[in-house]
């Protein structure tokens, strides 16, 4: 599974195009995982049309990965500002609970209007939650991990308070569409996530937001001295993260037509952070890559699907995941690659004096 297929085209060249280079390794990892599956199940990559929509493992990966992609999207921006948002899991639960709570008590849960109200309600509350996080971090200067830990703990309680600790089941066709429906052959959730990612990327890179966020994350003091309104920017990323989480929460609850205050989005923050990191964004803030994050999220979802498809017993699932994660991060490490290459080359001449821990900066960010 670690065999790296030859990079298509000249993408693996001299690394002059930064963005392309950074996406290369997560993409290769994803490809390797998919091919690994193919080895075990020959129709793993096959996609058929059934009942007027696409059907197949790839579609599943995209569909179940969509919420993770969204949460990771918001997380990327937060991490770019040197922050971290632990509360996304709770926000996922709250959003689902609110929407389902509203639908289950509404007179006509099947109407589009009611569904839209439910969605709006969830998003509005998420906005408030994000703002609360943002204010704690930027206004009071609380360390992001504690600030969001508060909501992480309390939020799940709130979600359960809304659902009264029960699983709220709803029957609403329009609502079901968000996470479980199809549109133009494709799962609606996938389209929604794709649109949101594209929109975010467009806004971030076309406006100056991306640059300002990277400056604030890369060197906060410098950011202040050039007059960036860091407070507003911080609040904005936490609000965005919460909104992304809320949409993800709607997808998750819609997919199973029910809201589970306790389990919805459990540990999704860890997966999201992992996706961001696998995608090549450093937890220390600064430069971020939205494309990398999307790939990272898909890698993680593919990994779960692989576990189910290969029939890895539940007791060894974690060991299996651990090995994959180790391999993924080794392959992604430029230093590791450099050392492996050097070792291979070193077979002819005498081995050079140990290269030690030389900062291969030029390759990390080249």
């Amino acid at each position, binding site marked *: 599974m670690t065999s790296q297929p030859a990079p298509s085209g000249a993408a693996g060249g*001299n*690394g*002059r195009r*930064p963005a392309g280079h950074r996406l290369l390794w997560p993409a290769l990892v994803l490809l390797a995982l998919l091919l690994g599956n193919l080895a075990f199940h020959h129709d793993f990559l096959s996609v058929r049309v059934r009942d007027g929509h696409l059907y197949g493992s790839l579609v599943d990966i995209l569909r179940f990965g969509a919420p993770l992609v969204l949460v990771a999207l918001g997380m990327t921006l937060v991490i770019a500002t040197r922050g971290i948002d632990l509360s996304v899991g709770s926000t996922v639960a709250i959003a689902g609970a609110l929407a389902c709570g509203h639908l289950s008590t509404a007179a006509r849960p099947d109407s589009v209007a009611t569904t839209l109200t439910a969605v709006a309600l969830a998003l509005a509350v998420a906005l408030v939650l994000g703002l609360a996080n943002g204010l704690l971090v930027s206004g009071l200067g609380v360390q992001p991990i504690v600030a969001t830990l508060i909501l992480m703990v309390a939020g799940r309680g709130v979600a359960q308070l809304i659902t009264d600790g029960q699983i709220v089941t709803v029957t609403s066709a329009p609502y079901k569409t968000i996470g479980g429906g199809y549109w133009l052959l494709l799962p609606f959730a996938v389209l929604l996530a794709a649109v949101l990612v594209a929109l975010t990327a467009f806004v971030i890179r*076309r*406006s*100056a*937001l991306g*640059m*300002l966020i*990277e*400056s604030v994350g*890369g*060197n906060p*003091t*410098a*950011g*202040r*001295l*050039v*007059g*960036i*309104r860091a407070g507003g*920017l911080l609040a904005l990323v936490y609000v965005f993260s919460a909104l992304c989480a809320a949409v993800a929460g709607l997808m998750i609850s819609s997919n199973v037509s029910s809201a589970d205050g306790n389990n919805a989005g459990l540990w999704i923050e860890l997966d999201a952070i992992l996706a961001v990191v696998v995608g090549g964004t450093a937890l220390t803030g*600064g*430069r971020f890559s939205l494309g990398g994050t999307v790939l990272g999220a898909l890698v993680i979802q593919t990994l779960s699907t692989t576990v189910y498809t290969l029939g890895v017993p539940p007791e060894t699932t974690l060991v299996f995941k651990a090995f994959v994660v180790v391999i993924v991060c080794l392959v992604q490490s430029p230093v590791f690659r450099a050392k492996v290459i050097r070792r291979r080359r070193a077979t002819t001449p005498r081995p050079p*004096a*140990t*290269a*030690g*821990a*030389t*900062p291969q*900066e*030029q*390759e990390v*960010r*080249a």
Partner: protein
Amino acid sequence: MTPPSTAAPTGADGPRPVLEAHGISKRFPGVLALDGVALRLFPGEVHALMGENGAGKSTLIKVLTGVHPADGGTVLVDGRPHTFTDPLQAQRAGISTVYQEVNLCPNLSVAENILIGREPRRFGLIRWSEVRQRAARLLTELELGLDVTGLLDAHSLAVQQLVAIVRAVDVSAKVLVLDEPTSSLDREEVAQLFTLVRRLRDRGVAILFVTHFLDQVFDLCDRVTVLRGGRLEGEYPITELTPMTLVQRMIGGELATLDGLSGRGQGEGAQRAAAEPFLRARGLARTGSIEPYDLDIHPGEVIGLAGLLGSGRTEAARLLFGADSADAGEVSVEGRKVLLRSPRHAIARGIAFCSENRKSEGLVGELTVRENIVLALQAARGWTRPLTRAKQDELARHWIEALDIRPAEPEAQVRHLSGGNQQKVLLARWLLTEPRLLILDEPTRGIDIGAKAEIQKLVARLADEGTAVLFISAELEEVLRLSHRIAVLRDHRMVATLANDDTVTPERLLTTIATGTDS
């Protein structure tokens, strides 16, 4: 002025070099930073390493001391080949280094920064009282009376630089490498440093010294190695060079002269001061950092801030930019009272501040040169009004050319630039915001002589076009040459404001700085 001729002979039968390097090459992606460079250091000599910004001086030092692996070449210490892969190994082999940017830990105390890694211990436990005493003693060698238990962070860059030097000097080393140690020191500190360096030289230590100040080279050094564009230009005994020939070796051509700039204050200054001030500060103060001061800055006027290291120049300037908030006094801009609560407010009123500390307060290392250049302008416009990529490229290219930033690659990461070029990027950032008042804190720090002249001319031109400039520099000559008026600070108090006319000589200025009164 002529140093005692302890210079090592270069003959074959002379003493063996303590450090010798041959054919050193180092390639970074896109740049061949070093191309077959050689260097010899003899015991008991002070050896200058000269070259323009980006010539490869710092890279050579980093390769020699194991920070970067070399792509080719050999390093001999005491005649035996060595390959360092870690600064620690170089240190153990007797090479002690002060790197160009201050590389200390801001979160530790001054004493710790000096002694960490070799603290005196008993039963494995650090003896803190001895650490403090030893650190204080070492600092007094440079006549620096600091509270050694305070965090390093609280001190100005110049003080940090001195601390770094003290740290390096304390190691009983065979080789001491100093990469632009004097870039933000004033005369007094430089003189003290030189005394120390001479003492070490007389003890037989080999000293490698990088600077852009020619007079310092002729004052202190015995031999010179000149780099140009990553190649070795040559190695000369100092006696064979004149300042003019040295510069020619460095840049490979003639230097544009600075004549015509000097003495600009006369007459004209008074005229400019008569106009309505752009900025008026009254009783501006901040407890613990600067006592109340008054200052008027007129459009088209250059005001120099003079003072000793730590006299409060930076801190006075930061108040005008809202970088620190004042706790007394008031500021009015163009006659209207304003509250400078944050840099944003100041920028909105046309004030720009170019920090002395480019590494921690200025540049965003991970971003590109282009992004760093347009950052302030973009921040002022807000995120909703982005500069188009084409516009950014245009601005970046313009300023790269105007300030001769090398490599002339807008997409290079700024942290990979040489120190002097980074400084130029920072300048470009603020110049392009077209400020009404430009505060320059040590703008020529680490910049080579050619570029320094360019920047001084630029400041003069800006003033002629009506920009007010507040100019802070540790180099008195520079302040005298550019300013219309000079405000003198001493001990965190503004003690005098002099109109820069014929009567202001360096001696008079020095006396004012030293005594706090204008005689």
